[in-house]
């Protein structure tokens, strides 16, 4: 393989030395550095999670869309035990990602063990272009260990109506 060596007067103190840049060596170095930073980034993400959302109390709420032709999602408001914990206004880009199978993490939080009532209020445009607001709820029995809840919007073609489901993601 042809190797291109470029003479490189580096900036600052290193400029005095007659260093050269081998693009292939630099490429390998950059690849290794990126891997290292990605791994560090992963570990820091996990550290943040452990610190802010310990496993025993952790609850994550995700939003998914199945087909989604009968309802154009505009926003979701999530309350837990009558306290608003998350609201999200969806952009076209985000809706497109949901339609393609992406899942949005609406909320990550802490709840003590015991029963909690989760209520999701969906607003958007329903069948025939009309404004549409629906609420769905779930009583979550929070035990030890992280728990995941899904807010799912699906089309019920038989009734030509959207369906809103709140359930534990298993």
């Amino acid at each position, binding site marked *: 393989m042809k190797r291109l060596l470029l003479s490189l007067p580096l900036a600052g103190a290193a400029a005095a030395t007659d260093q050269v840049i081998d693009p292939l060596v630099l490429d390998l170095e950059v690849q290794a550095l990126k891997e290292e930073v990605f791994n*560090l980034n992963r570990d820091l993400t996990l550290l943040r999670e452990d610190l802010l959302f310990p496993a025993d109390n952790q609850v994550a709420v995700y939003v998914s869309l199945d087909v989604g032709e009968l309802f154009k999602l505009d926003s979701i408001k999530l309350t837990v035990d009558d306290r608003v914990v998350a609201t999200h206004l969806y952009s076209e880009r985000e809706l497109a990602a949901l339609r393609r199978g992406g899942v949005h993490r609406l909320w990550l939080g802490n709840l003590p063990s015991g029963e909690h009532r989760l209520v999701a209020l969906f607003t958007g445009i329903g069948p025939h272009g009309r404004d549409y607001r629906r609420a769905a709820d779930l009583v979550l029995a929070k035990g030890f260990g992280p728990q995941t809840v899904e807010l799912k919007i699906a089309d019920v073609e038989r009734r030509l109506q959207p369906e809103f489901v709140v359930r534990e993601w298993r």
Partner: protein
Amino acid sequence: MARVLRRFAWLSVLALAPAWADPGRVADAAYGESLFHYYQDDHFTALTQMMAAQARARIPRDWAEAELLKGSLKLSYGLTDSAEAIFRRLLTDDVPAQVRDRAWYYLARLAFQRGRLDQAMAALTRMGSDLPPELRGRRQLLGALVLMEQGDYRAAAEALQPWQGLAEDEPYARYNLGIALIRSGHLEDGVATLERLNRNPAATAEAAALRDKANLAIAQALLAQQPERAKQALRRVRLHRPHATQALLGAGWAEVGARRYQDALLPWNELLRRPIDDPAVQEAWLAVPYVLSELGTRDQAAEAYRAAIDALEAETARIDQAMAAVERGELLDALRDLDPRGEQLPPPQALPGNAYLGQLLASHGFRRALKDFQDLESLQANLRYWRIQLDGYEQLHTASRQRLEAVQPVTLARLRALNAERVRTQREALLRRQPSAEALAALDRALADLDAGQEALLRAPDEARRRLDRLAEQIALARLRLDNVEPRLQQALERQRRLLDLRALQQLGARRDHLRAQIAQARFALAQLYDPAAERPQEQTP
């Protein structure tokens, strides 16, 4: 030509969708979350979430699709070695066929990019027969590109017919088919194929650019034998687009080929009105006096050569200035926000030596190096974010520890208040009174609960302390890793920047050398015009 073909191939690597593209098919929320970011082109968050989720074993069901997505995300960051390792791990029988097919495709792409053509073809043949149209087309196109790189244009043309992929990818297939036909000696078929790209209006900028390239390719193929048809193709190249000056230059040469020297002056004089930093314009500055001398207008030709020498010398000086601007770091300032996967270039006035660097900027090698530079910059910003976060985490940690120490005496007081011994004494007293079995069982349950509660309370402060100790260690370790990687990242960033600058300087230097050669050529031609020795034979002719 190879550059153009490779570029399309490179784009196709990035555009391939993950195996599960249907909504409702995601089994693991964490994989769906990565997809959510991936579909919004936020590759960094997609990869971070994926890696974190995998570390916690949160993707048990979609693991194969997740690995495929991780491999393609790593590929988008230029991490070819680890991406390849991921794709290779997906070639086993326990992986769903649709994931395995994509893994083979990615491996073929990687081999192609590395110039390992046989390996690329072998990987393509391992793909199954039941492919979705998108992947079927990509395999077809890549197979043809491999054959063209191997010089087998006839087989490449056969491989592209009939088109089996998505309709939106067909123009690229048609373009490559036209080239393959021309190169394999089927000039008319190839030209006809390329001309079909002119039939429908180009809906996107990329489609219009592809059409320009097709018309230029037609003109190049026909210039020698059929200059009139070549000229027709060149007329279809949009006049104020990047390929327009090449088209005008080619149109003039087509006239020269047909010995219509006067007609050649029309497109070339148009070129002389355009900025001289374009190589096609520079060539026109020499071509005009050449044609004038062919037309026998010696004085006009001499004047045109003098004007060319002045113009080219001034341009040489401007290249020197552009090289100085690159040395001052202005190139990377202009390129910092450029999408290396896209077609567009920064505004010409923002880029030192703009026209000369167009080809370099479009090259895969430069774009890849630019992407590395941008990746390193964004990773550096990410590390700065974490450094600030870590300060906050330390404060939070300190506050948690203080709260724990404050709560512990209260906990111990509650523990004392439980006073299980007193309940045991009551039990003994109750036993002497021969209680009912139910009453005794209830008391025993209460006692057991008390014991468990006591144990939990006794354990709780120690467990909390151990958790806080562990987090403190992790915070300290993360800080050490940050301290360690940040200077190396900065150094790599500086070297990457220098590499890009040096490539631009090489390009500009080569262009300056070419200009100097053109100036020498003009001086020589000017001297020849007035060389008495050159005229003497004509005067002696009876």
